[in-house]
């Protein structure tokens, strides 16, 4: 099956803007890749594990939970030093919420 990908919706979901050239190239690549991963849907159920959700770690990590304790974090100024824009206390971003209407 050759699935047609809705690039408009996909780029919107991914938060990616593509040039026309990029969009055409990636659409072809993605459709080819989707046809490859579709092979997974043809594997007989009998060959698969019963569990559907994986825990990848073969370790004993699942037996443990971190203690629910607060710890000191890195200093604010160090955390903000890489911010593209900050006011010294907060990350500065474009306005995300409209002005309150009276």
């Amino acid at each position, binding site marked *: 099956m050759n699935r047609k990908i809705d690039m408009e919706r996909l780029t919107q979901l991914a938060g990616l803007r593509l040039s026309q050239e990029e969009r055409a190239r990636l659409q072809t690549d993605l459709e080819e890749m989707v046809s490859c*991963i579709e092979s997974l849907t043809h594997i007989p159920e009998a060959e698969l594990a019963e569990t559907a959700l994986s825990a990848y770690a073969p370790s*004993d990590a699942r037996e443990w939970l971190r203690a629910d304790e607060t710890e000191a974090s890195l200093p604010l100024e160090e955390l903000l030093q890489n911010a*593209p824009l900050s006011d010294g206390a907060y990350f500065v971003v474009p306005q995300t919420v409209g002005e309150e209407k009276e």
Partner: protein
Amino acid sequence: MWLREEFERNVACLQEWEEKVHSFVFLRTNEARKEAMREEELLAEVGEEEARRRCPLLGMTLAVKDNLCIKGMPATCGSAALKDYVPPYTATAVERALFAGAILMGKTNMDEFAMGSSTETSHWGATRNPWDCGRVPGGSSGGSAAAVAAGMARAALGTDSGGSVRQPAALCGVLGLKPTYGTISRYGLIAYASSFDEVGILARNAKDAAALLSVMQGYDGKDDTLRRKTQDAPPSFEKGVKGLRIGLLKMGQEEGLNEEVRESVQAAARRFKGAGAQVETVTIPLIEHALAVYHVLSFAQASSNLARYHGVLFGERVARGDWEEMYEATRAQYLGTEVKRRILLGTFVLSSENFSVFYRRAQSVCDALRKNFAHALERFDLLLGPTSATTAWKLGERLLNPRQMYLSDSYTIPANLAGLPAVSIPCGTDAKGLPIGMQLIAPAYREDLLFRAALAWEELSGQAQYGLRQGKERWKNMK
């Protein structure tokens, strides 16, 4: 004394090779020299035994992949999105290696966000293979592999989510180890696919790799996938492969396996057998689906992990319009094509209409594959096969063909899906004189078996030190 001499040999290799190979994106030779001098002073003051007790990695020059954070040093991940990022903390793996005496030479080049198999997608340009500078070093830890191969560092740290340590190790003719998932903390590793990301080791011999693993492994309270049970002392290795049960993985033609690679791996299997190992052919059911499973799961996780590069918390920003416009414009400008490709496929398989069809299904196949590996490793101590289907290919040859590039990892991905430890060891060269790597996979937490076989192979092959200078002529003699 030996320590300073060894350090200066590395610097001489740097001067000879770095311009041709471009392994590093950040070098700190002068600081490293001061550290080497301090270690030499310690050596003179307390003697070798005490100096090694204090610093198990005494004198070991180390290169670190640029997706591992070191406080105050750039960590660009090969991306324009992080070109000026300087992390405020140090990765546990690096911190432990440096504490144990490793001498940091610099940060190494990589595919952007570790997404690639050739180290050609870096914002800083491609790294070249020192065995043939017209060819790729493999990836994504290509800078680390090339640095070790050319003698610019004695060892290096890389990261391996689908083969990014083992495959470049094979293509550059050095040893590459991916430990069991949950062995080395990922604190300070810039995430790509969290269920598979691991810190790995590139080295010129098994002893160095074992020493590095020994100091870096173990719980640090900062990565909850880590195993709590830790080994306090380096494992003692039994000698030789006598009595080891080795399963030779069936090598089909599907992945475009090169005939010289196949013959080289089969010759290694015969040598192991000649040294007393029991060798039998084995097949792992569902292994042919590993690549598809990896694409679904890792790309989905990448699409989630890379959502953070939106120009707010760190990295670059395109200051334009409202929030949404800024977000999209920043990602459009600063993320490369391969990264966008993986984010898009990841978003596709996570979308509501495809989640069950692809993501759940891939998890289910991954579970089954892991069980199939566990079943095989009840019969065998180690599984043997090629690391890469081919030797190093020419620069640019696969860059515009993502499917062909993805196939480069088809032999390494299964161990990541199963979370198992695996090592790539040089086992010969092809007719062009390019290195070939074989891969050994062990049961979870049985890195000691990998080291045992790797040490035995050093004796069997007469290769005490892998790498370009040591290897090229000796492999010829072995033939």
